[in-house]
């Protein structure tokens, strides 16, 4: 009897929840935000499958050199070696986005690890870890990334390491704060009272509550990482030519800038577009999530 009453009450509560108008994230977005989210999906798709759909190779000459955009057979023109700009842009996009995703993921995991340990253990360890984090935050990020990448030698991998080195402290700070907030929440307190301790408390009760914040923040940072990678490869810290990479293509194109603007401008536009789309839709999502209290 008691059991069924409790169940009835639970059902009522569930019904009430279901009756409440559930506003999806999509329907609460404005037109511009929707357009930017669609843009992000489109850019990711192009980066994912585009290189296999392009008619020409990005590193084998396929036409006369320096054809302007809208030439026959070469919608985006060709560069000084006669390489198809369209194919190079799509491959470069793939390379840049992939690198940015990897950098963000590694930095987020590293930062989360350090932040969770600091926030959960507290005391001396917390103090020490946060001192190190603050130290890294006090450095000018791009400069340190450049120094690290230069020390490791010219390759996209060293540029990625360089950016990861300066990117994790942001997540460590964020996660530490979140962990301390979550640790005071009723469900964690309840688990603690029931005798759950240590690793299990951390993995089962604290980390799941922190994950949404950190994953959302990280995915929104991709635009900024794309820009930083492009800046590094623009000054020569990235994949050496002729491998297609947007920042490098832009800086190589600078030599022919006044005769053939598209060789330098199109890759730069691609970088700008990607960064803009990610930043814009990211901002919209951030505002929405804050409003929903995630």
């Amino acid at each position: 009897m008691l059991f069924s009453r409790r169940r009835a009450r639970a059902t009522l509560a569930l019904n009430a929840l279901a009756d409440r108008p559930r506003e999806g994230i999509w329907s609460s977005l404005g037109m511009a935000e929707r357009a930017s989210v669609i843009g992000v999906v489109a850019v990711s798709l192009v980066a994912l499958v585009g290189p296999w759909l392009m008619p020409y190779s990005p590193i084998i000459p396929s036409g006369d050199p320096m054809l302007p955009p809208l030439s026959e057979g070469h919608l985006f023109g060709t560069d000084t070696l006669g390489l198809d700009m369209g194919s190079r842009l799509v491959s470069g996009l793939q390379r840049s986005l992939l690198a940015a995703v990897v950098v963000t993921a590694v930095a987020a995991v590293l930062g989360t690890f350090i932040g969770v340990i600091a926030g959960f253990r507290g005391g001396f360890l917390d103090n020490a870890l946060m001192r190190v984090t603050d130290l890294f935050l006090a450095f000018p990020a791009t400069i340190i990334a450049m120094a690290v990448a230069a020390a490791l030698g010219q390759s996209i991998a060293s540029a990625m390491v360089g950016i990861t080195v300066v990117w994790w402290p942001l997540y460590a700070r964020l996660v530490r704060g979140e962990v301390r907030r979550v640790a005071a929440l009723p469900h964690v307190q309840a688990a603690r009272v029931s005798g759950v301790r240590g690793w299990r408390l951390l993995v089962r009760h604290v980390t799941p509550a922190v994950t949404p914040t950190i994953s959302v923040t990280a995915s929104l940072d991709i635009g900024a990482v794309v820009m930083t990678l492009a800046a590094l490869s623009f000054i020569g810290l990235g994949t050496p030519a002729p491998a297609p990479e947007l920042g490098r293509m832009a800086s190589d194109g600078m030599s022919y800038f006044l005769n053939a603007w598209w060789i330098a401008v199109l890759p730069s536009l691609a970088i700008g577009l990607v960064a803009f789309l990610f930043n814009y839709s990211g901002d919209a999502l951030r505002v929405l999530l804050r409003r929903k209290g995630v």
Partner: protein
Amino acid sequence: MTSFVVKRLGSLVVVLFFLTAIVFILGKVGNADPVRTYTGVNASAEQVAAARVELGIDDPVSVQFANFATGLLQGDLGISLATKRNISDDLSSSLPATLELALAAIALAIVIGVVLSALYTRPGRVGQVLRLVFFSLASAPSFLVAMLSVLVFYKWLGGVLPAAGRSSFGPYDDGTGFYVLDGILHGSWTYTWDAIAHLLLPAFAASVTSGVALARVLADGITSSMASPWARTARSLGESESAVLRRHGLRNASSPALSLLAVHAGFMVSSLVVVEQVFSWNGLGSYLSTAIGVGDFPAIAAVCLILGAVYVLLNTAVDIVLAAVDPRVRLS
């Protein structure tokens, strides 16, 4: 206030120390072989041995670090592997070039910020279009802004503004390295104006992002403080709207704007490096990318240390100024 300044200066020393240490360690663990870069690939065994002694490679690491750090304190940045000259001498002409550009960029960012913030607070059709243009420019990479401004002002408008170098005339022999200042000191308006014209496009490309960010913060601050109780009190006491704006709106909005500028200084430093390349500006950025091209790590390290130190010093200075202006900062 004194204890705040002491604390802040203490942490400045710590940060500078670790900055030096990190750059030094990077030079040690890096992939490149400094001796080979220094002597060239075809050097004999004796030449390599001599270079090892000259570069101090075989000293204990602690001794090498001590030499490196004391050298820095005396303004000695080490020897470039590529030019085999003292890096400090190499940089004596490019440092003023970058500083001049950086100062121009900061000034321009403030101008853009103040003008745009007026547009933010007073909505209208023209304001909307301008805001959109500037917002797009602000999220573009700085080399794209640089290229577009060259295309528009140099190529399509028939060279109304110069797009490369620092001056059409070259430096004065007894100059300070700051061309605008040199022009003024020598009383030559043609020279001064020419130097300013060369500054405009690169400074714009380096400053537009910070300018727009500044405009947003200023606009936010002004709107909220103009709606505050103290602004209402000032109005009820009969102060004119412009006096309220000047004495309460701007003053309250300036403190977050100042700290934003400090954050953006680091951002501007990195975009300067890129922008200098587009405009063939012979500053630290061009020096850096040449050094990267030949794998000259001591030179790269020197530029990174200088730029990093400027950033850290600027941040400390702004923190102290903020604390002087706003007592709440001192307590936190």
